[in-house]
């Protein structure tokens, strides 16, 4: 605390502090983690806001994401180009949304985006099927997967259009008290 660091200007750190759920120390630590993914690519000095993007293959090699079945979707959701190339801002954004103090509404929005595989702002049956397959790593038979998807859609779809809009999803998540503690990555 109080030691001179040259990675960010004070203004940048304050902006990060106000816009994310991290403190100064945590942001500097995150920068360290970001840098160790690609030390030749990421500079030590971020004061002049370099436009560096780390490719997704390096990001998903992080221990926090490596075994996660949704890692590609997570990285894709938080990257600006949608393909997974993350700048430092995207990186901080991602871990801030998954933070412990991040509110339920924010997590719900991002969870919806992650589970929406075809990015049509709806979770349709295909999205559900892909989610289930990734969850169970293919241990459920296709009929069971289809049955589960149908029943889930029946349960959660309120306005009857056979897919989950964001409000359906939000309504269902609000009934799940474990969502907040499960949708949390420690960094």
């Amino acid at each position, binding site marked *: 605390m109080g030691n001179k660091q040259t990675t960010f200007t004070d203004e940048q750190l304050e902006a990060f502090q106000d816009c994310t759920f991290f403190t100064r*120390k945590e942001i500097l630590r995150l920068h360290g983690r970001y840098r160790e993914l690609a030390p030749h690519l990421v500079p030590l000095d971020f004061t002049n806001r370099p436009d560096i993007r780390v490719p997704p293959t390096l990001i998903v090699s992080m221990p926090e994401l490596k075994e996660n079945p949704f890692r590609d979707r997570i990285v894709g959701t938080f990257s600006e180009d949608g393909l997974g190339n993350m700048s430092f801002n995207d990186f901080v954004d991602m871990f801030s949304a998954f933070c412990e103090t991040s509110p339920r509404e924010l997590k719900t929005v991002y969870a919806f985006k992650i589970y929406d595989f075809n990015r049509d702002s709806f979770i*349709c049956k295909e999205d559900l099927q892909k989610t289930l397959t990734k969850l169970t790593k293919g241990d459920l038979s296709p009929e069971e997967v289809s049955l589960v998807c149908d029943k889930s859609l029946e*349960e959660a779809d*309120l306005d009857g259009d056979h897919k989950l809009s964001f409000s359906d999803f939000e309504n269902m*998540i609000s009934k799940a008290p474990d969502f907040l503690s*499960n949708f949390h990555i420690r960094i």
Partner: protein
Amino acid sequence: MARNVAFDQNHPLMEAGLESPIDEEGVHDSFSQLIAEQSQNGGASDSDAFELQELQRQLNEEERDNVAFLSGPGRDFQGRRQRDAECEDADTQADPLIGERWSSATLKILSSMPSRTIGRNRGAIISQYYNRTMQLRRRRQSRPAIRDFSHSARPSIRGYGIETDSADAEVSKRDRLVNNLQNLSVSDRIRMLRAMPLNVSEKGELRSLALQKEKRTLSRRIPCCSQLKYYIINGARQGWYSWLSFLHSLHLWQVPLKRVSGRFGSGVLSYFLFLKTLLFFNVFLFLVTGAFMVLPQALHPPESSVGRPYFTGLELLTGAGYFSDTVMYYGYYCNYTLRKSCRDDGGVHDVSLSNGTMPDCVSKHLSYNMPLAYFFTIGVSSFLTCIILVYSMSKSFGQSFRIDKSHSILAIKTFCSWDFKVIKKSSVKLMSENICTQFKELLAEVSHKQVKNTRCQRLWRLMVHGLAWAICVASTTACVLAIFFCSSHMHQNLQFFLRSRVSVTNPLLNEASLLALPVLVSLINLLLPGLFNLAAWMEDYESPSVRTYVSIGRNLMLKVSVLGVLCYHWLGRVAADPMTIDLKCWETFVGQELYRFLLMDFIFTILDTLFGEFLWRLFSEKVLKRRRKPVFDIARNVLELIYGQTLAWLGVLFTPVLPAVQILKLLLLFYIKMSSVMMNCQAPRKPYRVSQMTTVFITLLCFPSFLGASVCVTYTMWSITPSSSCGPFRELKTMFQAGKRWVEELEKDNPNLSVLARAHSYLVENPFFLFVGAGIFLIVIYFHSQVVDGQRKIIGLLQEQIENEGDDKKFLITRLQTIHEQKRTPARRLASQNSNC
């Protein structure tokens, strides 16, 4: 031939939509009914409806429009075709939205509907947050001062307030959002910024714009005192951030907790987080008692009359001997006001003063009324602990309580069951398997109907349950009676020794015999839960959560009864008549007992970890040849923690240093349990509802544990006579009188405060006040429960409304499409005719 489908305002159907239907049966609940009704209605609409249906059929046969898919990149075109093909196989007549080919115009409109743009469209997010900040401003805004308005503004404008605060016309929503952000208070602004689901760079831009504007307006109009206030608030906020940063940099157990959560998930993590919470409670308690009780007394030691016995190793276990006459126990504390002596020979001796005499030189400003300090410290720390507990309990309850009984089990399981914290490969694999098993079980439950048990089976199950409960209750009663008789036997033993005046041959053995009762209690606490587990295994519950709750209930029953009989023994037997066992200072004795119990509990927990987990794992691997390691029993371990904490809370009155002992114990326990779990255990196989369980545990910490301890302490302070030769409440009738005496002294010194004295005697000593307070509390709880009931009903109504809105949406979309097709198809026919000519 072109047909004009006019939206006829006088159409009966339109009128039905505009006002509430007189005929209730006329309300539609499906789209096909609407079409049917339309076709039934007489008049010009008859042929219209027929034409519509014709057009729909034609649409289905026609090839698809040149549709431009307007949603984001990566859209799966093929998926939609497949979906349409699938759905046409099924019965689609009831739901025309599926399988329709939409025209590009309809699609354009559909894709820009608000519900589809959430999260995707930045503009939608900005618009949403503009509305939210506006609401927040309206809530927080006080009426603006007149001088902020131009002279020509009408007085009625004041009521609108917000809309007139910008002189220049702000065009875009973004600018309006920035304006709103600027006008919020700093903490509100930060909270809004953080909660926005936008990219960090965009949030940074919004923030810098808002701050820029703020700087500009600040320099313009704020007078100097408001500017000072602004600087103070800013400085406070910076200070708060640095304090948070410092706290976080302490990194208490961050790495071990991450390892545990990475390997075992949230369930086992919750045990360690609970341990951390208890540690903070004890640190707080120790800081308070240490600062106000232990430290002053340690700095002003009383003159000890008896020589101190030598230190033998046994003291660490029994707490007696060398430790008896130290600041650890109640008996050491003085009952007078500590004053710094006026002799300047370096030392700070106490001048043993009674209330009357005073030496000629006395430094009044350094006096410290020990009995009062003792009394108030215990009271205030209990009160603060109570508030903190109730607050964390209500917060936890708010997160986990769900008004609506959940019907969407499968959907919730799909989206909320993956624990993102788990990062170890084998644990991830295990978690996938667990989730797969749970899905299979749920499917089996949902698809097949519940098999109805025959009468005989139900009777059998009832008998088994009854037997199991009988076993548990009987064993609990047996153990409680054992403790009762053992304690009375020890009591009589001590009396016998005194009466017969047998010379004590081996004082060490005598002291060691004091350990018999704690060892017995700890053994019971260790072995009986195993018996309860056996009984539960015999009962074979279907639902794991019921099994967990029953197990918690039985363990709770055991611990409450054990603590109850012990409290009776201490307060009812020892404290009531201490002279029978020649106890000069019964409070010190009780304090020592509690120290012994706490220590034995710790030793037995370590032994249990060693034998229960480590050796059992070796046994099951080598002898039983099982591949799976034993499961970490979260509920049982948390109940052990709660039991230990209850003992600590009971003992603070008699042993002010007990929180320090508890802190040491928790620290050691953390590392021992952590290494044991890593080496010997695996994550639970059954689904563990973390937030519910955490709420249950913190409720158990508050209600039986803290409430019981505080009731005992209050009873002690209110009714039991303190010992006459030791402690800070020596010559008083009850400990409570210390407060009363102080009020009397105040009144004597300053007659104007007699009001306070009278208020004190009416309010505090009169139990009527307590009854009134409790009654008000119960009424408030009742009102809140009625509010929750009302909210439940509203939720049901809103869900119906959502379904109706969904039907409306379907109707409008299809109508839009058919109208568009109606207009387009004749034009195409015309064009084809023209081309043929």
